[in-house]
């Protein structure tokens, strides 16, 4: 009996070892009934998410949140919240859309079964896993359409447009106010982008070091600071250069450096500060997309040198006091304009950031 017991344990250990060596993902993923387990790799986009109820004395209703890891920042971004039908127990089959990428994370929120209203509590772990690049989604025939809810409160901050006044000029193109976006699934499919009058001031997407508005560093910050190092800057719309020179609003210790001011055909203005060099002169007519100069780090603050960046403003009129949030007037996919080094400096996420978590 004793020897048989030994054999049994040894056999289990050997099989566990063989399984671990042969199919490490499968063996370890199922250790606690959680799948996909943290750092696992799967070869399909259709995944039967499974988790564990560690409280045997209570039943819960669950919400499954699935998101993605944004590669460049390693920040998490929740994309979908699924109310798991109680008949499913602690599992749910979901085909992860290709748009979510291959670095996926997921977690579960739960509340006692008969709680009304249900106050979801976040589970203690967030699991990240990878989907093989060539994985194909094959949704099961019987799978019902997941119920997509906006994830509010703690799971995903709302992306809400800041109210801004319309352009003051009567000749301006009326801009349709951006829709409030409260559903995390739809936040980057914003049709109002098409009605924005201006384009991005760079040829490629460049990250931001400080957003417009009341930020952790300045109240208010009158424009957006792009972390551009000697990049070509572009006219955001047709217009005329009406200002150029060295900005020095408070002596040598507080200077915006080389700047350009452009008046656009809709009456609005755009300004560029801390430029290394400029290619246009006052009176020059420019077209949308024309190269105006090179960004730099000229100027100073508190008698100290500035970091390389472009301080970019959009204004309703000529005066800086008429500054408005460029996000509301520039048509681009702002989800691709990341906040630089936000993980180590969370203050950079502050202000009128169109995506407050990254």
């Amino acid at each position, binding site marked *: 009996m004793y020897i048989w017991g*030994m054999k049994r344990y040894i056999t289990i250990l050997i099989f566990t070892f063989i399984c671990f060596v042969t199919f490490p993902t499968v063996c*370890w993923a199922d250790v606690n009934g959680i799948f996909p387990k943290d750092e696992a790799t799967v070869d399909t986009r259709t995944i039967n998410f499974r988790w564990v109820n560690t409280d045997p004395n209570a039943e819960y209703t669950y919400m499954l949140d699935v998101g993605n890891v944004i590669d460049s920042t390693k920040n*998490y971004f929740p994309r979908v919240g699924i109310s798991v039908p109680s008949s499913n127990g602690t599992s749910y089959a979901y085909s992860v859309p290709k748009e979510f990428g291959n670095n996926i994370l997921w977690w579960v929120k739960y509340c006692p079964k008969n709680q009304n209203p249900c106050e979801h509590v976040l589970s203690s772990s*967030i699991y990240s896993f990878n989907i093989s690049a060539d994985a194909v989604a094959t949704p099961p025939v019987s799978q019902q359409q997941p119920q997509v809810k906006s994830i509010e409160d703690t799971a995903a901050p709302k992306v809400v447009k800041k109210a801004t006044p319309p352009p003051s000029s009567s000749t301006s193109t009326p801009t349709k106010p951006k829709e409030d976006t409260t559903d995390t699934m739809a936040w980057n499919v914003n049709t109002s982008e098409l009605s924005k009058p201006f384009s991005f001031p760079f040829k490629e997407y460049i990250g931001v070091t400080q957003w417009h508005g009341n930020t952790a560093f300045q109240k208010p910050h009158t424009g957006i*600071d792009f972390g551009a190092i000697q990049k070509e800057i572009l006219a955001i719309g047709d217009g005329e250069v009406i200002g150029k020179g060295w900005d020095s609003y408070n002596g040598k210790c507080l200077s915006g450096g080389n700047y350009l001011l452009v008046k656009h055909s809709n009456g609005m203005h755009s300004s560029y500060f801390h430029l290394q060099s400029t290619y246009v002169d006052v009176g020059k007519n420019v077209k949308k997309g024309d190269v105006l100069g090179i960004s730099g780090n000229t100027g100073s*603050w*508190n*008698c*100290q040198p500035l970091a390389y960046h472009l301080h970019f403003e959009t204004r309703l009129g000529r005066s800086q006091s008429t500054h408005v949030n460029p996000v509301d007037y520039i048509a681009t996919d702002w989800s691709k304009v990341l906040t630089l080094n936000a993980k180590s400096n969370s203050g950079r996420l502050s202000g009128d950031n169109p995506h407050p978590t990254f």
Partner: protein
Amino acid sequence: MLMEKILIVIGMIFELISGQPHRELIPNITNPQQIIWKDIDHMLFVKDADIFEYNVVEKTLENIGTRKPNEFVGLDENGNIVLCGIEHFIIDSEDEFSTVFTVNGKELKFFPTIRPISVIGDTIVAMTAMDFLEQHYYKISIASGEIKEIEEPKNISDDNNENMALYVQKDMLGNVYLNYDTRELFRYAIRTLAHRLDSI
């Protein structure tokens, strides 16, 4: 009895072989402004005005003090809490000072606009306070007030612990997790044991 012991040993061996990292949520603390490892068993969380001490072994969180909004929390040579007050000023010339640190009633004045990122013993490590300025790092002696520019220090992130056997991570919701790697902890234990045996 023997079987249990054998199983424990085998389990430990498998645990070490697997190298699986473990993670547990630290309850009742979110979005701390500072995370300081006091020693291998204790860490400090600075959350708004409150300073909490978390016992990693007993998993208890205790409020051990307060700070003002412009104070940075550090540790002195004996592991006691020390507060570093920060004031910034707008200046008109390079002859003026734009930063004043106050530690134990002693004022330290500096031209660059800087903020502390670590206060340990007699040393303050500081960096440029404003994001849009050229970023520099400094080492300051509290005793002498001497300031010296240094290279960007490694592991300045709150999340890191030097031995990496235990480290904390924050998720996007501000929850704080304690991570530990059994294999690293085992190595750490061996190193500590060897160190103690050497010192006998």
